[in-house]
C-alpha cells in the first residue's frame, strides 16, 4: 500500500475529526447540521442586508464598503493562517528529513487541509454574497464575484504576513518584495477607481452594475490563484526561525503562579506575537480605510476592532494544544480542579482583548463611538475567545501534530457559525420577553465562559 504525503496528512485530519465526532456525537451532529443549513440561512440573511443597503447600492462608496469589509476580514484570516501554518518539522523528524520538496510539504501541511476546511466556510460565504447582491443593481452574478474576491483576499493576507515573517527573520528582500507588491496593489486599485481594493476594484463596479460581473469574477479568480501560488513559494522558502534569547534564571524564592505561567507560555510563542501584531496593524488599517471613506461612526470603530479581534483569536485557539502538550504537568499538579483551565482562559481572553482595545482606543479618538458599541465589542471579545477556546479544546492545536492548526481553525469556523445561530435564535426571544439587554449579554458571556472552562477541563482529563 502506498500513500503520498498529502494523502497521509489528509487521512490524519479525517481520523481526528472522526475521533472527535465519535467521542461527542451530539455536539458534532449539531455543528454538522448548522454547517449544512448555514448556506440557506445566510442566503436569506444576505438578502435582508442587501435590501437594507439597496437604496445606496448604486453609489461607489457603498459598493466599495460592501467589498472592503469582507476583504479585510478574509485578509486577516489569511494572515492568521500563514502565521499558523505548520513548518516542515510538523511532519515529524523522520518524514521531514525525506526527499519531498519544500513546496510539497507546504501543500500537504497547509494548503490541502485549508482547502478541506474551507468546505465549512465557502458555501456559506457564496450563499451570503449571492443573497446580498441579488438585492443590488449588479445581481447574483456580482455576488459570485464578491465571494470569489473574498476568497482571493485570504492568500493576499497570507502574502502580507510572509512579508512580516521575512522582516522578522532578516529576509529583507522578501519583505521588500512584499512591500512593493502592496504598493503595486494600491496603485492598480487607484487606476481602477478604488485604491484599497487593488485589482479587485472591478467587483465593486459589478455590484453597482457599472462593470461586468464575469470580468470581476475572472479577475478575482486569477488574483486568488496567483496569490496562492505566491504564498506557497514564499512559505516554502522561509528562513528558519531565529533562536530565542537565552534567559538566565535560577531557582529562587519567587514562584510562578498558574495564571502567570499561562501568560508567559502564550507570550513566548512567536506565532502568537506575530498574530497579535498583525491583528493590530490590520485593525488600524480597517479603521483608517473606513475613516477615509467618511463612513459615519461607529463604522470605523467596528471595522477596526472586529478585524483586530479576528486576528487575535489565535491566542485562545492554541490553548487546548498548550494544555494537551503539558498535560503531564497540569494533571499531576496538586491544585484545585479547574485552576489550570481558569488560568489559561483568563490569560488568553486578556491576550485577545489587548490588540482589540488598542485599535478600539485609536478608533474612538479618530471617529468616536458610544458606550453601547463598547459593550458590543467587549461581548464579542469574550464570546469569540470562548468559541476559540472550545474549538481548541475539541481539536487541540498540538505542538507535534501535522497540520493540526488547520483542523482547529476549521473547527473554530464551524463552532462560530453554530454559536452565532444559537445566539441569533435565543437572544431576540429573550428581548421580546422583556429581559434587559445587559442581563442577556452577561448571561451570554457567563454561558460561553462556563462552556469553554468545562471543555478545557475535560481536555485535561479532570472533568472526565
Amino acid at each position, binding site marked *: 500500500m502506498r*500513500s503520498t*504525503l498529502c494523502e497521509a496528512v489528509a487521512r490524519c485530519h479525517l481520523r481526528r475529526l472522526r475521533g472527535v465526532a465519535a467521542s461527542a456525537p451530539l455536539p458534532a451532529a449539531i455543528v454538522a447540521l448548522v454547517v449544512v443549513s448555514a448556506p440557506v440561512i445566510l442566503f436569506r440573511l444576505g438578502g435582508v442586508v442587501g435590501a437594507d443597503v439597496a437604496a445606496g447600492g448604486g453609489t461607489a462608496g457603498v459598493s466599495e464598503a460592501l467589498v472592503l469589509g469582507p476583504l479585510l476580514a478574509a485578509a486577516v484570516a489569511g494572515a492568521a493562517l500563514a502565521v499558523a501554518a505548520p513548518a516542515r518539522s510538523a511532519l515529524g523528524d523522520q*518524514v521531514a528529513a525525506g*526527499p519531498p520538496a519544500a513546496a510539497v510539504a507546504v501543500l500537504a501541511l497547509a494548503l490541502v487541509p485549508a482547502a478541506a476546511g474551507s468546505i465549512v466556510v465557502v458555501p456559506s460565504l457564496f450563499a451570503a454574497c449571492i443573497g446580498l447582491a441579488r438585492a443590488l443593481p449588479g445581481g447574483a452574478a456580482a455576488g459570485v464575484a464578491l465571494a470569489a474576491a473574498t476568497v482571493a483576499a485570504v492568500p493576499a493576507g497570507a502574502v502580507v504576513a510572509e512579508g512580516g515573517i521575512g522582516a522578522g527573520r532578516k529576509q529583507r528582500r522578501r519583505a521588500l518584495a512584499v512591500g512593493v507588491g502592496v504598493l503595486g496593489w494600491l496603485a492598480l486599485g487607484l487606476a481602477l477607481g478604488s485604491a484599497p481594493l487593488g485589482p479587485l476594484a472591478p467587483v465593486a463596479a459589478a455590484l453597482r452594475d457599472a462593470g461586468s460581473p464575469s470580468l470581476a469574477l475572472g479577475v478575482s479568480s486569477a488574483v486568488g490563484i496567483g496569490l496562492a501560488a505566491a504564498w506557497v513559494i514564499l512559505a516554502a522558502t522561509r528562513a528558519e526561525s531565529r533562536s530565542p534569547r*537565552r534567559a538566565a534564571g535560577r531557582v529562587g524564592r519567587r514562584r510562578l503562579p498558574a495564571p502567570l505561567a499561562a501568560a508567559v507560555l502564550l507570550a513566548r510563542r512567536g506565532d502568537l506575537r506575530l498574530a497579535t501584531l498583525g491583528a493590530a496593524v490590520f485593525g488600524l488599517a480597517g479603521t483608517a480605510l473606513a475613516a477615509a471613506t467618511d463612513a459615519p461612526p461607529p463604522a470605523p470603530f467596528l471595522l477596526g476592532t472586529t478585524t483586530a479581534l479576528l486576528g487575535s483569536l489565535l491566542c485562545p485557539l492554541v490553548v487546548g494544544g498548550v494544555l494537551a502538550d503539558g498535560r503531564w504537568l497540569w494533571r499531576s499538579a496538586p491544585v484545585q480542579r479547574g485552576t489550570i483551565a481558569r488560568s489559561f482562559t483568563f490569560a488568553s481572553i486578556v491576550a485577545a482583548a489587548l490588540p482589540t482595545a488598542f485599535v478600539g482606543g485609536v478608533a474612538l479618538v479618530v471617529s468616536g463611538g458610544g458606550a453601547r458599541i463598547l459593550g458590543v465589542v467587549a461581548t464579542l471579545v469574550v464570546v469569540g475567545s470562548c468559541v476559540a477556546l472550545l474549538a481548541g479544546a475539541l481539536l487541540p492545536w498540538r505542538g507535534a501534530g501535522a497540520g493540526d492548526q488547520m483542523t482547529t481553525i476549521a473547527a473554530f469556523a464551524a463552532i462560530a457559525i453554530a454559536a452565532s445561530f444559537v445566539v441569533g435564535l435565543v437572544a431576540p426571544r429573550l428581548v421580546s420577553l422583556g429581559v434587559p439587554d445587559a442581563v442577556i449579554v452577561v448571561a451570554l458571556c457567563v454561558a460561553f465562559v462556563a462552556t469553554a472552562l468545562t471543555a478545557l477541563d475535560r481536555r485535561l482529563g479532570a472533568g472526565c
Partner: protein
Amino acid sequence: MCRPPAGPSAPLAARGVGKRFGGLAALDGVDLDVRAGAVVGLVGPNGSGKTTLLHAVAGLLSVDSGTILIAGSPAGSRAARVASALVPDEPTGLDELSVIELVSLVHALWGAGVRATARAEVLLSAFGLDDRRGQRLGTLSRGLRRQASAVAALSLAPPLILVDEATATLDPEAIIVLSEAVAALAARGCGVLLATQDLHFAGAACHEIVLLHRGVVIDRGEPGALRGRHGAASLEEVFLTALGDSSLRERVRDAFDAL
C-alpha cells in the same frame, strides 16, 4: 584521527561544521566521516550537539559554516535526502497513521522498491510489531513508536542511516534487535551514524566512537583504542576522563550532603 579522510562519495563527509543558536555554539568546527560499512557512534553529555549534528546531516537544520556531503551531495538537497534516513528521538507528527501506513508512506516518499517491503516485513517481525501493524502511532508507547520509525528507516537501507538517541526508551529485546539490524545493514555497505548515551551499547555496536563536548570533537577512535589511550577499563571512564570530570561521583556525593 585513526584513518585518512573519507572520499567525497562516502556516506558522510563533514568538514568544519559550525552552528550557533543565538550566542551558543552548538557545533564548532566538527569534522566527521562515515564510511560505507562503518557504524559511528556520537557520544557526549546532554546538550553537547549530537542531535544538532544529526539534524544538520539530515537536512533539518542549516549550518552556519562548513560542508556536509552525503554520498557526494550537499546535506538538505534532494539527492542527499534520498541517500539517508533518520530514526528520530521523538517520533511524532503523524499520530493518526498506523504502523504499516507510516512504513508505506516512508517507502513512497523515498521511492523504495520491493526489496524495502521485504526488509520491512523482516524488521516488523524482528521487533515484534507484527500484531501492531494496524495500530495507530498515537496510541503506541514512545518506545514502540521508535521501533516503528526504525522499521521504516532501516528497511530503506540507504547509503547513510542516522539514529538519534539509539537506545532511548527501547526495551532490552528491542535494543538487541536494533543492534543486530544496524550490524547487518553495515555489513551490506550502509554507513550508520548513531547518537547515544548508552556507552555499553556504543562500545558493542560501533566501529568508531566520536566524543562531542560543547559542540567540539574532543576525542575519537575505536572503542578499544579509546580505552587504551585513556588507560580506562570502561567507556564510562573514558567519557569522564575526556570531559575532565573523573571525580564527578565523589564531587556530587559531597554536594548531596545538603539534600
